[in-house]
């Protein structure tokens, strides 16, 4: 049982900044951990909390949201909406028993390929430390169990 745990992380990124940043990491041939799967969206404003929950429900051990830096949003302020939404959603996440450390939020511009690669490594390490995410499925089993009263 000494095998290293390889977490699965789903990243929701905007196409204008972070997706382009990830492309830059690629064209610069920077090496990073292969644990993150990217879902491309037009803007972080498009990211619904439901996507995050769905990812966690379907076996992701961690979720990353990343978009343009504040003030740089291609759509002027979609990233601000995303940030506000995340501030509220984080509290809700904690309330439902899902540790909010499993969801990360970051800004990566189209020019920050290096930062993207570093983030991939650090988020993989962080989630690895947290271990596999199975609370959600445990929760499902609990709710689906017949009522005992």
């Amino acid at each position: 049982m000494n095998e290293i745990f390889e977490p699965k992380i789903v990243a929701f990124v905007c196409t204008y900044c972070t997706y382009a940043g990830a492309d830059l990491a690629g064209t610069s041939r920077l090496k990073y951990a292969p644990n993150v799967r990217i879902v491309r969206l037009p803007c972080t404003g498009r990211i619904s909390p439901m996507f995050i929950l769905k990812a966690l429900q379907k076996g992701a051990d961690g979720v990353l949201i990343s978009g343009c830096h504040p003030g740089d949003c291609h759509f002027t302020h979609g990233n601000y909406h995303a940030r506000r939404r995340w501030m509220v959603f984080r509290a809700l996440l904690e309330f439902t028993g899902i540790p909010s450390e499993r969801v990360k939020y970051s800004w990566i511009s189209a020019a920050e390929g290096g930062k993207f690669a570093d983030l991939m490594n650090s988020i993989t390490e962080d989630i690895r430390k947290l271990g596999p995410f199975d609370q959600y499925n445990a929760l499902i089993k609990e709710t689906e169990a017949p009522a005992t009263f």
Partner: protein
Amino acid sequence: MAKIGVFICHCGENISAKVDCKKLAATIAEHPGVAVSVDYKYFCADPGQESIKKAIRENHLTGVVVAACSPRMHEATFRKACAEAGLNPYMCEIANIREHCSWVHTDQDMATEKAADITRSMVEKVKRNNKLQPIEVPVTRRALVIGGGVAGIQAALDIANAGQEVVLVEREPSLGGHMAQLSETFPTLDCSQCILTPRMVEAAQHPKIRLLTYAEVVSVDGYIGNFHVKVKMKARYVDMESCTGCGDCITKCPQKKISSEFDCGIGKRAAIYTPFAQSVPNKPVIDKATCTYFKNGKCKICMRSCQINAINFDMQDEFIELEIGAIVVATGFQVQNNAVYGEYGYGKYPDVITGLQFERLASASGPTFGKILRPSDGKEPKNIVFIQCAGSRDPSKGVRYCSKICCMYTAKHAMLYSHKVHDGKSHIFYMDIRAAGKGYDEFTRRTIEEDGVSYLRGRVSKVWPKMSKLMVRGVDTLLGKPVVIAADMVVLATAMVPQPDAKEFAKTIGIAYDEYGFFNEAHLKLRPVESSTAGIFLAGTCQSPKDIPDSVSQASASASKVLALFSKQTLEREPVVASNNEATCAGCWGCVLACPYNAIEKKDILDRSGKLIKRVASVNPGLCQGCGTCVTFCRSNSLDLAGFTEKQIFAEVMGL
């Protein structure tokens, strides 16, 4: 039943070196809904594209996933290939297994596993793609240019000379803007009016330009290619048709002591006036605020003096509506009010003036006919102190930015002064000399070396009157000594600031502005003349402080953008836009608040008798840019974004 074709590209060895493409193709082939799963060395090359087209035709594929490089690279290529094979181009998706996988990972097994995940996720997405059609938007080929300064005139002339209609709106009674106020222009010392007035006349007489002076844009609705603009024509009380511009009324007007806006308060004008002698149109307006008749109900001397009865005191403001395809905003700047510098005594001592006032003194057509005379006693000043950065680069009292032109115009003022007053001496207090521009540094060097202007590096702490002089206390930081100069006149290089109503105006027409009120460009480097709103372009100092060459360049750039837009009857754009399910929309208007583009309108749903059933949100596809913020905001799940629907994204997540 979905029949998806998956095409896995080796990209030479770029992908196949780290991803086992054969194994990947075999894995994906087993995924439900996948009809074809093949790998090939270069799918982007002609034979590769042909093989995709062949597979689409032979297998009647309903969707295509190309697992290759970034969609930012070849999405357009592969979508075009699909369209050529008869498949809707939006049924093609790219799985990025090069930039996001093979180039960045070292372990082949893990890279192959990741590539499979990425590809599967795109297969799941493409199954739920919709056949989208590009949106066609008709274009009204008529441009609106707001602001009749040098930038606005340039943009209007460029567009009109290309054969397109232009409406040029100026809120002052005459074209010209700030450039008309200037004496000579750096670095060539061209007479400003000599180069500007011919262009003003050209704009006014151009058959393709409709000139609306003394008019203001009050509302802008619609979207790129289809703006509806309402313009207020302020009452001039002078009939533009019949007035010949003889000027009899102006000479007869008993109110002649009104401080002239054009002369920055140094000259006087009558209540019925043209801003300056070369005004275009050269027809007067009555200033309602100062006219004796409007104040006391008696006078009408001008009306009696007019031989053609062009004066009409019953005239009212009129509103005209225009259909416009593109807008160029060239609303210009204002100079900062230097009363904030109490220590310089601007407004308190009449001989402390702004750079713009100095321009009027130096102008041959100005109140002193080009003689440099002190406002207080009309004497020729023998010693002038110029204070640079009186407002700029001063976060405490002024503005943080550099106004860009002050170093140059101060050097020009000192040079003009030395040419006009041969025994005069001028001193310039400066922080840095910023003379970047063609011929600019040479110009400032000339001021220092040939005209002997003394430059003192340091700030001025106080100006106070002593006898008929103004004492200026400053510091020369290069000598490390305080200096006191007895000056006859002090000229402040005032900061360039946005028009006082710039923010309000930006909201009216729906463009973004920065913390100061300068209008924001779409991208500082790559889209410097486009505003954040499609179809609205920026020119001149409304965007940032600029000199004349820069303003004119930007105006011509804006004009070329407008002409590119007008080169087609219709606009075609990506159909990635939001749409609303009106049946489930609850009308909470959360989306209206979220939309950065004002693309969501409230729409009434009526029954047959015209009774209101409910009000729902309706997305204007011409305005929508497809960010999807509204979709996430929608509480009733009524909104969705084409190309990135809820279903597609959930499927993508499930596929991972």
